[in-house]
């Protein structure tokens, strides 16, 4: 079974993964690994997490078949796994609740997190409020300006939001700053890393907390359709929602696993976040050996996507393994294609997806046309699009010139968020 061959070397998925960190963090990573391994076989921990899933997050999330949308997918049937209906509006809460419970278990009193556009930051601030932990969230200065609404949300939840002015002042720099904080305060602080990358045990641990997406979805599809889907589509920033839904299907060889990356303005334009289809090559970033967008000197190249949640120059190491082993396929979706899928789902089904998730929908449109009317496609709808209304309204020119001026003025006085990540 492919999912078991991944654990032959500690923390490695094939060649990918590992632990490229300052020595000062190794003890904390070992402590975390020990605690989470014990926790994952402790009925009390698992019971507490399950209860939070049920009574706080609203799990199990439902599946929804979208026939009117599917008319644009070559007639294949399309089913959405509705992570957008979770408390805080995305899949991110699954991982955060697991990690804040672990934080308590380790006797630490403070959590830190990085966030690109807000969704993981909001989830972490929420989990910290729920369990009475101090919380600091690092966010690139550019993102705090674009995502003022989510900054306000985090502050309302009691978190301190720290704008990061280094480097490109976006997500990857927020990750660097979170690591710096962690190196300094590791005794009291746990770093709630938001996706399936970073040093071991993060990629494995975050995947395991999100695995519930695929476990539920696989059973729900079997119950409703009497068979497995032909393909599972999910957007991939860092790749946590995708790993969450893929993992339960890895040992089902007839199910195609398709990850959709931020293709931005097109892979040839150089302005994209396509780590598997652009000029990315294996390297080390943020503690893991994986595919990285880098120049010919090994310096990280800035990525671009209309979706802030997919705008990250690296990707989880298990995705790198699934890709190189041929078990999963990855393809870029351009900003244009994603926004077309966004509008289509809204108008045909009355669901506003996160722009991140719209990349997965665009992937479903393509694979649906390959499969034809006999096909059944499962899509991870990783988050909801409320946060993206401003971006989408501008993209589609839904506001008149006067309204845009008015909105800009209002924004200057009381900033409103543009887009928030939920695809990582």
């Amino acid at each position, binding site marked *: 079974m492919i999912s078991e061959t991944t654990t032959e070397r500690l923390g490695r998925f094939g060649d990918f993964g*590992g632990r490229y960190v300052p*020595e*000062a963090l*190794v*003890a*904390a990573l070992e402590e975390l690994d020990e605690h989470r391994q014990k926790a994952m076989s402790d009925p009390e921990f698992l019971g507490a997490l399950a209860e939070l899933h049920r009574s706080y997050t609203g799990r199990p999330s439902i599946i929804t078949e979208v026939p009117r949308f599917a008319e644009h997918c070559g007639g294949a049937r399309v089913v959405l796994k509705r992570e957008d209906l979770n408390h805080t509006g995305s899949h991110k809460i699954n991982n955060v609740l697991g990690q804040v419970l672990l934080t308590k278990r380790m006797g630490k009193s403070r959590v830190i997190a990085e966030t690109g556009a807000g969704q993981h930051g909001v989830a972490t601030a929420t989990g910290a409020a729920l369990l009475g932990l101090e919380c600091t969230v690092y966010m690139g200065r550019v993102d705090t300006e674009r995502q003022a609404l989510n900054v306000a949300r985090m502050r309302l939840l009691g978190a301190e939001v720290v704008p990061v002015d280094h480097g490109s002042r976006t997500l990857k720099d927020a990750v660097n700053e979170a690591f*710096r904080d962690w190196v300094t305060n*590791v005794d009291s602080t746990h770093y709630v890393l938001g996706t399936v990358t970073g040093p071991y045990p993060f990629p494995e641990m975050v995947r395991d907390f999100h695995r519930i997406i695929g476990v539920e979805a696989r059973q729900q599809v079997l119950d409703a359709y009497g068979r497995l889907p032909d393909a599972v589509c999910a957007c991939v920033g860092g790749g946590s929602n995708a790993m969450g839904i893929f993992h339960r299907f890895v040992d089902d060889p007839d199910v195609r696993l398709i990850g959709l990356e931020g293709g931005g303005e097109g892979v040839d334009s150089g302005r994209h976040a396509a780590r598997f289809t652009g000029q990315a090559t294996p390297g080390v970033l943020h503690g893991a050996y994986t595919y*990285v967008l880098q120049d010919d000197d090994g310096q990280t190249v800035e990525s671009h996507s209309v979706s802030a949640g997919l705008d990250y120059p690296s990707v989880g190491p298990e995705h790198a393994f699934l890709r190189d082993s041929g078990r999963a396929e990855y393809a870029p979706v351009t900003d244009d294609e994603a926004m077309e899928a966004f509008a289509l789902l809204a108008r045909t089904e009355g669901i506003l997806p996160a722009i991140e998730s719209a990349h997965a929908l665009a992937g479903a449109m393509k694979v649906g046309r390959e499969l034809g009317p006999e096909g059944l496609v499962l899509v991870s709808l990783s988050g909801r699009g409320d946060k993206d209304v401003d971006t989408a309204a501008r993209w589609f020119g839904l506001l008149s010139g006067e309204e845009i001026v008015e909105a800009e003025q209002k924004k200057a006085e009381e900033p409103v968020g543009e887009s928030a990540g939920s695809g990582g």
Partner: protein
Amino acid sequence: MTAVSEVLARAKDEGRAALVGYLPVGFPDVEGSVRAVRALVESGVDIVEVGLPYTDPLMDGPVIQTAATRALEGGVRVRDVFTAVRAVHEAGAAAVVMTYWNPVLHYGVDRFAADLSAAGGSGLITPDLVPDEAQEWIEASDRHDLDRIFLVAPSSTTERLRMTTGAARGFVYVAALMGVTGARTSVGDAAGALVERTRAVTDLPLCVGLGVSTREQVAQVAGFADGVIVGSALVRTLVDAPDPDTGLADLRALARELAAGAREGGR
């Protein structure tokens, strides 16, 4: 090659600690950084850590990151590090490269080792590469007779101190505190305690860094360590200078002060 171990042994014979100074290549530009590393050597620095600027330096504080970012904006390339190493070597001091792992990995580990050796460099300090992940580097450094300077931290267990020092060569970089590079008002008690714990498991020379910035602090650390590492304070003289000549003069003045500190506090 001017071996780090020879320089450390010589300092020990003289009854003092060695002074290790860090500067990134390419700041303010490649030529300016070459002048700056020469100035360090002329002002009494025994070992120069030539920093390789990297886009994501997660172990560095704001001063070093500012310099590295400007160096990258100025177009510094990985190969430029060998130019600075050669300059240090020709000026008569030992040169080591401090680098995050990805640029070396991307350049090619063996090729990097060969070019470093050819330039007269002694070895590498790798802040985000622990011995557990360093097999390729351990083999390449053996082939090219280079030093492997790994870090130990206050959080390192005795088992890890033993493993890390067992894999190291040249000296051991003792991180004085939990944190990133940058000046601190005091060195703190953790450094002395960690030096003591590390000495219990190795005979390698121990050089203490992170947070050391003044003559007094250097003298204090020289009382219990074989070498004292100063980075951000030196870089700051160049970052804050109104013009390159003033920066160089300030750099020389500070390096002389620090070198005096290393002599005052010798064990």
